[in-house]
């Protein structure tokens, strides 16, 4: 089965939801019209068409166009050596689509990265935190309206808002019978 045939099978199965496959430089690409259905399409591609390997998930910011976001999935079948690119659009108001972690676990960090860099959230993602920027960073730097020079922000946001561990004193273990967490406080609350 070639990549084109798998794309045609997807088209046959999902009808209007999936666009006609297009080819560029020998790569087959299809577009899923409704981002909400992406999990169903991916599941079919994995279970029935043998796309067991998710190579990459990336995102595009079509700034100035509507819908603004495009999420791009690169699929590969290791046994058949077929490759397929699935794209789906997400509007700016919504900025959300279902997660494909249930299909491929590797989507976990890819989706966290897209959330971090573009600000598109993934529903049912178990652990949607920032991954490259720090927790509490207010912007999404890969958006086209974010300047290359960056914007000033409180560095570092959350991480240092608490007193540093054992700040203001030597290492002290409080002798008591309580658990080690209480005996060895990670943060010493300043006495005022």
């Amino acid at each position, binding site marked *: 089965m070639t990549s084109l045939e798998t794309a045609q099978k997807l088209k046959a199965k999902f009808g209007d939801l999936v666009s006609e496959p297009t080819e560029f430089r020998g790569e087959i690409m299809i577009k899923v019209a409704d981002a909400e259905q992406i999990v169903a399409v991916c599941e079919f591609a994995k279970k029935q068409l043998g796309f067991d390997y998710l190579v990459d998930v990336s995102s595009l910011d079509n700034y100035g166009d509507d819908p603004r976001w495009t999420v791009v999935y690169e699929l590969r079948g290791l046994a058949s050596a077929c490759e397929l690119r699935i794209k789906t659009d997400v509007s700016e108001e919504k900025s959300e689509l279902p997660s494909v972690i249930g299909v491929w676990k590797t989507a976990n960090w890819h989706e966290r990265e897209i959330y971090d860099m573009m600000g598109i959230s993934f529903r049912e993602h178990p652990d949607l935190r920032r991954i490259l920027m*720090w927790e509490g960073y207010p912007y999404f730097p890969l958006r086209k309206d974010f300047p290359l020079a960056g914007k000033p922000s409180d560095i570092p946001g959350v991480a240092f808002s608490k007193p540093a561990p054992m700040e203001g004193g030597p290492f002290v273990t409080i002798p008591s019978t309580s658990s080690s967490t209480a005996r060895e406080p990670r943060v010493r609350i300043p006495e005022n």
Partner: protein
Amino acid sequence: MATVQDIEIPDSAARAAQAVDELPDDVGEKMVLNMGPSHPATHGVLRILLELDGEVITKADPDVGYLHRGDEKIAENMTYTQFIPYTDRLDYLAPLANNVAYALAVEKALDIHDKLPPRCQYIRVMCCELARISAHLLGLGAFAMDVGAVTVFLLTFTEREKIYNLAEAASGARLTTSYTRIGGLMRDIPPTWCDQVRQFLKEFAVALAEVEVLLTRNRIWVDRLRDLAVISKEMAIDYGLSGPNLRGSGIEWDLRKNQPYLCYKDLQFDIPTGSVGDCYDRYLVRMEEMRQSMRILEQCVNKIPGGAENKSKEPVNVADGKIVLPPKHGVMTKMEELIHQFMLVTEGMNVPPGEIYFGHENPKGELGFYICSKGGGVPYRLKIRSPSFINLSILGELMPGAMVSDVPVILGSIDFVMGESDR
């Protein structure tokens, strides 16, 4: 009236003993240990939050991003050629391989990636394989040092030094090589380079055998690596592992064989795979990959079109003035060349609208570039699929159940580079 008060000072040793007796032995009490971001075993700036039950890890949460430089954002703001130096800094243990991967990706967008001159293909393959040896040597040396075998580190670094010398002879730089250009190379290799590679291979074979003797049947090494952090086939595929980590789990997938690019079709080499998927298998796979790289290099220096000295004047760049800079004497004397030079330097080459993904078998795994072009000399979006980033994502599932002392072993066997992971 002054009063005298007796102060009772209990014996400190007795007090300590009493305190210990009073301590309850909390069963299942967890401790959170922060490892990194600057820890010798994390090879850079990886931070792992370990939740421990005694010595056993119950939960691991890797935290990446300390080396994030925004390479993808930077790429959107410069021409394709200008981004080449940034690729040196992705996997800084194998800059030559990154250069080749990036150049091939842009060439795929230009549709010239299978029309490269044969001499250029051979030189690029040699660069990739030298980079593979260099990266594996550092990974192996640091891995062995973390496990306690410092001698290996000294041996592998001596050999790496020679690869740096080769990179310097070819490109002029030891680390930040930027050797490739879109559509070819910065320059041809010097006439003595092939002999230098031959000399290196001769010496390296001896050094590799020595490392092999030190490690492969070493009781301590084997005991610490065997059956540790086993990655099953299904798990490796599910987590999208690539490179030696994927092959260590017994999956025969190598882009050099499965989607051959450059002149890999014409070269003889084998793809080593593991059987169990533990740390020892991943170590063995890397050792064998270095030997296969030697085989490839050997064939390349013998088969390179034009020979070592390129007496027949084989080109190393595609003959397209709209992609590759014209020769300087042409710029000085001819109008068309002058225009090409001016357009290439100011605007860059014109990449037709469309999108491509190109995956390259880098030492750490599949380094992929997804390029979305809307025409012109600047990518609209350039996504880097970094193998280290994806290989690290398995740590959360791999580490629970292992001991704290296994952490450096697992990290060494996964073999990652944070410059590439964080981009």
